[in-house]
């Protein structure tokens, strides 16, 4: 929409380069600080490029600190959430995408409205609920809450995906004698696989990056996921930013990869299909 002739293109490219560099800068600081030594982090002025490059921070933080087990906890929680969200979202999304029934609009409207509620509004109630059933300091409590918050958008995403699958394929299979659960398992699931994968990964990222539930529902150090674990690490070793940033880098890699895999479909779901 801006004219792209000669100089203009150059200026625009330069502006977006600067803006993007600023946006990515914190991620770069995290990566580069994780590669500095415990002395060079205090260099003045700070080194933009680590010299020497210290790779040893990674094994140190993985095997000689709590962060290693925090990462494993995060993986368990995130996989658990991914699976639970998938199991709950698929039937609901299929039903909403394929059937017109009374209450459908209400259900969809509620899903949308729910996306506005943040953990902080119901943390008191959630904590009370989990405390009553002994689910504080348990993976389950956290998986359940994280799933509840990933679910509305998950269903929304998945029903959008399923409605793009031509109905005729299912009808053809039905004519051929497949029906009910067979039809779901052998026709719908394979066709919806990319959508299902997206929803599972969305659950994964949501749980991995979540903070408030993790902070309140998990109190024992050995059960903490890595977002909270890094915060405790900082409390213990306030000057070891080399190790802390190495840990932060490790904690960023899994959700980053997953996020970029699903970003396209996520954005499409968020913007109601306006971005293609």
């Amino acid at each position, binding site marked *: 929409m801006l004219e792209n002739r000669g100089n203009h293109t150059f200026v625009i490219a330069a502006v977006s380069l600067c803006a993007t560099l600023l946006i990515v800068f914190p*991620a770069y600081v995290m990566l580069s600080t994780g590669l500095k030594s415990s002395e060079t982090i205090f260099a003045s002025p700070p080194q933009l490029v680590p010299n020497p490059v210290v790779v040893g921070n990674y094994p140190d933080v993985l095997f000689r600190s709590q962060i290693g087990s925090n990462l494993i906890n995060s993986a368990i929680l995130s996989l658990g959430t991914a699976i639970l969200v998938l199991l709950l979202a698929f039937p609901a999304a299929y039903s909403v995408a394929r059937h017109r029934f*009374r209450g459908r609009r209400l259900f969809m409207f509620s899903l949308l409205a729910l996306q506005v509620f943040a953990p902080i509004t119901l943390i008191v109630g959630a904590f009370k609920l989990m405390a009553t059933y002994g689910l504080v300091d348990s993976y389950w409590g956290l998986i359940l809450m994280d799933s509840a918050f990933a679910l509305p958008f998950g269903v929304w995403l998945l029903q959008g995906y399923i409605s793009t699958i031509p109905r005729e394929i299912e009808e053809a299979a039905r004519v051929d004698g497949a029906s009910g659960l067979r039809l779901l398992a052998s026709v719908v699931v394979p066709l919806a696989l990319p959508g299902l994968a997206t929803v599972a990964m969305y659950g994964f990222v949501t749980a991995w990056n979540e903070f408030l539930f993790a902070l309140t529902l998990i109190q024992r150090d050995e059960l903490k996921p890595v977002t909270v674990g890094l915060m405790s690490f900082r409390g213990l070793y306030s000057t070891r930013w080399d190790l802390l940033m190495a840990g932060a880098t490790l904690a*960023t890699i899994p959700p980053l990869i997953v996020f970029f895999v699903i970003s396209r479909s996520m954005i499409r779901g968020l913007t109601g299909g306006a971005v293609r």
Partner: protein
Amino acid sequence: MGKGAPTSSLVSRWWRRRDTPMLSTLRPWLFIAPCALFLLLFVGYPIVLVFVTAFSRVDVLGRLHGFDGLANFSVLIDDRFLSALKNSLVWTTTAVLGGTVLAFLYSLVLNTRFPGRSVFRTLMLVPWAMALPIGSLVFVWIFDDQFGFVTAFLHGLGIISANVSWLGAGATAFPVLILVAIWASLPFVTVVCLAGLQTIPDELHEAASIDGASFAQRVRFITLPLMRPVLAVGIILNIVGMFNSFPIVWIMTQGGPGYATEIIPTFIFREAFINQDFGGAAAVSLIVFLFLLTFSILYARESSVVSDRA
């Protein structure tokens, strides 16, 4: 798979009985039931518990001892709450305004065709992909008063002569936190703006250019009005997200120094889990809940406008 085990054929026989009207209305609901029940149990029920707690006498362990009228709501006239509320309003408005303006300009740039554009469009998503607690930690280091990049950079430019304790003083800590909030929300708002821009046909701009409209005029009279529906959804979501944002403040300043950077979410957390005043925390949550309910209905309405258009 063969012809299926007896149990599954029973299920599918039941499934095929599409003749009874009762069943055909129930079937979609059976599929939705697990999801709906789950949400009722883990979102709906906690909200009910917040309601009940807000009107109950609560001990430090969080146990309820009967109806207590509006006693818990006395926290709403507490100075700490009022200052948190004021901070939350400043935080939300500045971060949303700043973020929207920056994201809009950025999206105009990214919507232009130039070499490498798709790389930038991908890279700018990085803050969104990073966990906010981790991003916040990184910013603590970037704004370190002695060894951080910001201090070194401003020192090098001669703007500051001594080290500034960015997060140690309310006057600097709050703007820094807002900056981080803008950084964190920028990808989302930019994506929303880009979505809006893509709904506008190029012909409109071409026609307006031929008629002699300047770039600014085209933005004002074509881009902004046509982007309104998409932008409205993005802004509503951003307001809500910003108002509820907890990790940035909690990790970078814990609401300090003093209570200078306390916002409503950190206030609720502190009341409940540090001061062990579950009643007060629930009372504040309830107010926030009602506030969000308005936005939530607004959002659901606006976004159904958008998806109907798409």
